[in-house]
């Protein structure tokens, strides 16, 4: 029976969580020390061991260059993207360029793709579950932000495969949260999921009709999360320190990490107690050799002023989602908060004000996504579902408009955003030259009619059709978005009905060959035997 269990894994930017539902309500699996969420941090130790989770997080300061965190911000992105440039400036670990404009992470002279790092986190989640359950697990449902594009979803799926998990499905985090909320409740409501995570922000509007969960619309910002709140505090602390002591803490990567940790702690404290006392002893040395401490006091009002614009930005996204769903804030019956930063009073109060409704409090914002994923995992493995019907059905949508590039840097819409998935759509292309034997198309996702405002998914090249005069060969290209939100492209010669072969010549993802190699490499990577909290691995 061991193979008949699927985990639900919330692979977060800063924290991950694993849950399982087998013959009962879904439950979060804690590790041996009772920790229910685990830092998405991977630390490479000197002896070749790899440390993942909350222990690894302690190494962010002491082993900064060899400790990778917030890898989710980089997953499925091109090396030239803004987000990667931004990460390079602040991350202590090496971010280098790989083949095909891909992003690679360089730690201890070892160059790895981003999915390989995420795979280590997934592997840790798998290990936590296996220790708890007492048997091996090979299947999982992994979540990703609703606003993730095809590249990011594909990379997340690759990460699962590298970790030795069969990823049954990639589901959207807000959808998973809604499932965990509405599952088995037999309700008919319109709900809004406000998901402010470590690095991303998502809003989904859903209509729950008993056992059917229909996503009406989804919107998001992949550049907005709790990390940005930390950054504001960090910047304030650093500016203040510069004024007082004439030293810029941001110049030193070691100081920067201590600053980052202080910022995160201050945010949590100020949210919980209304005030934060910041104290970092010996954060740096003056040129005279004097050790300087960082002490500061952050009040709630001051903090709120610092982050107000970030909070306001989330409501612009809410406006957009409501508009796409053709609803107003008053039509929403319930608001679910997901993600750690939603614990902050400023966020809660603003949400209450926007929706004129008390957000639900009986949902744990850190665990709800993993619970939803576990429910979905159990449903996908349920053999009797085919006969008796399943307990719930997720009707999800694609978050971004699928486009193909045309002449002059413009693009043409193929599948609109918020279209239910799985879906397919065809478009006919013709040859433009006599004797043309290949057709290339570039596929994009985004809301801009100009291609530079959209994300490139890849370039597809079709060959093996009839060679004839220009305009005589018609190639029907079918774009399919599957239940994972992943795009598949295929083409047929319209006259002969023959399938043409297609190759992807430009893609941020791993090739099949790279992937196989990564799977092998990763299998050899030993996760360090996990230590009880308090013991710092070196």
């Amino acid at each position, binding site marked *: 029976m061991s193979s008949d269990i699927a985990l639900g894994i919330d692979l977060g930017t800063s924290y991950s969580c694993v849950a399982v539902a087998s013959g009962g309500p879904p439950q979060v699996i804690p590790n041996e020390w009772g920790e229910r969420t685990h830092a998405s941090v991977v630390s490479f130790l000197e002896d070749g061991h790899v440390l993942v989770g909350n222990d690894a997080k302690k190494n962010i300061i002491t082993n900064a260059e060899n400790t990778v965190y917030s890898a989710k911000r980089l997953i499925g992105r091109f090396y030239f993207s803004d987000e990667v440039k931004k990460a390079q400036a602040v991350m202590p670990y090496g971010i280098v360029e790989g083949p095909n404009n891909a992003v690679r992470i360089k730690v201890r002279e070892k160059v790895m793709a981003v999915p390989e790092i995420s795979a280590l986190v997934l592997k840790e989640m798998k290990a936590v579950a296996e220790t708890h359950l007492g048997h091996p697990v090979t299947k999982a449902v992994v979540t990703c932000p609703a606003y993730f594009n095809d590249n990011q979803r594909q990379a997340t799926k690759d990460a699962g495969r590298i970790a030795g998990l069969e990823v049954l499905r990639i589901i959207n985090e807000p959808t998973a949260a809604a499932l965990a909320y509405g599952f088995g409740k037999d309700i008919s409501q319109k709900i809004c999921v406000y998901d402010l995570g470590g690095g991303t922000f998502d809003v989904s509007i859903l209509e729950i009709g008993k056992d059917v969960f229909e996503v009406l619309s989804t919107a998001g910002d992949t550049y907005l999360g709790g990390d940005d709140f930390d950054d504001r505090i960090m910047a304030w602390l650093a500016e203040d320190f510069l004024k007082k002591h004439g030293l810029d803490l941001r110049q030193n990567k070691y100081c920067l990490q201590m600053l980052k940790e202080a910022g995160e702690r201050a945010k949590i404290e100020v949210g919980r107690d209304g005030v934060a006392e910041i104290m970092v002893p010996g954060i740096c040395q003056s040129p005279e050799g004097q050790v300087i401490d960082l002490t500061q006091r952050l009040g709630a009002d001051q903090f709120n002023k610092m982050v107000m614009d970030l909070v306001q930005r989330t409501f612009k996204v809410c406006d957009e989602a409501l508009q796409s769903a053709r609803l107003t804030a008053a039509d929403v019956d319930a608001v679910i908060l997901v993600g750690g930063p939603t614990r902050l009073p400023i966020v809660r109060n603003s949400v209450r004000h926007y929706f004129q409704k008390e957000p639900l409090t009986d949902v744990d914002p850190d665990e709800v996504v993993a619970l939803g994923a576990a429910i979905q995992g159990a449903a996908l*493995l349920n*053999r009797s579902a*085919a006969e008796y019907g399943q307990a719930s*059905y997720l009707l999800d949508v694609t978050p971004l408009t699928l486009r193909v590039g045309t002449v002059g840097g413009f693009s043409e819409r193929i599948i609109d955003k918020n279209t*239910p998935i*799985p*879906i*397919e759509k065809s478009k006919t292309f013709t040859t433009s030259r006599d004797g043309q034997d290949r057709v290339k198309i570039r596929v994009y996702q985004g809301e801009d009619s100009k291609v530079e405002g959209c994300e490139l998914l890849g370039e597809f090249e079709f060959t093996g059709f009839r060679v004839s005069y220009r305009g005589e060969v018609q190639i029907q290209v079918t774009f399919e978005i599957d239940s994972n939100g992943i795009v598949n492209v295929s083409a047929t010669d319209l006259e002969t009905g023959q399938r043409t072969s297609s190759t992807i010549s430009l893609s941020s993802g791993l090739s099949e060959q790279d992937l196989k190699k990564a799977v092998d490499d990763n299998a050899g990577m030993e996760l360090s035997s996990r230590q009880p909290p308090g013991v710092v691995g070196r």
Partner: protein
Amino acid sequence: MDAQFLIEVETLATVLDQLDYYGVLKLAPGAGVADVKAAYYRESRLYHPDRYAAVDNAAVRDMIGRVYRRINEAYTVLRDDQKRVRYQADVTGPDRLKKLRFTEAEESAVQADQKRKLEEQMGQTPNGRKFYASALIEINAQRWEAAERALKGALMYEAGNARFKEALEMVRAELEKTRAKGDYRIK
């Protein structure tokens, strides 16, 4: 999975290309939005691929996937007011068999339609629009003669514009009313 269901799916998958979207959702032709949604939920409960994810037979899963993608396609078109009107006209028209699926051609037709309607509201030529805009101001101020002049000007540039003609009719009727009072017009 019972044999009867298998036969049902197989039949549906075979005739899929001969069905219109109402047929796919098992609806009466011309059904409204509420019915479309109810049908979509009903068919989703029946054919959602997640329900059959654990079925071993890949061919069956593919078949159900194909059916469900079409259900989604049908729902996308029929839930949208503009697309539904267009589709309704297409499938009741002479080219019914060619128009069972809402393809890119229809999609762009709907878009062009929308654009045309918008243009019609204000005119298609710059000068036509200018005259029409000034006519609207005059109508609001109830200066009927000036409005008539402006609309005649607009119609010089866009002789076929129904909206302009309609406005001119209205203005002339108003003019008639004011003139009818005293009967001292010079003929």
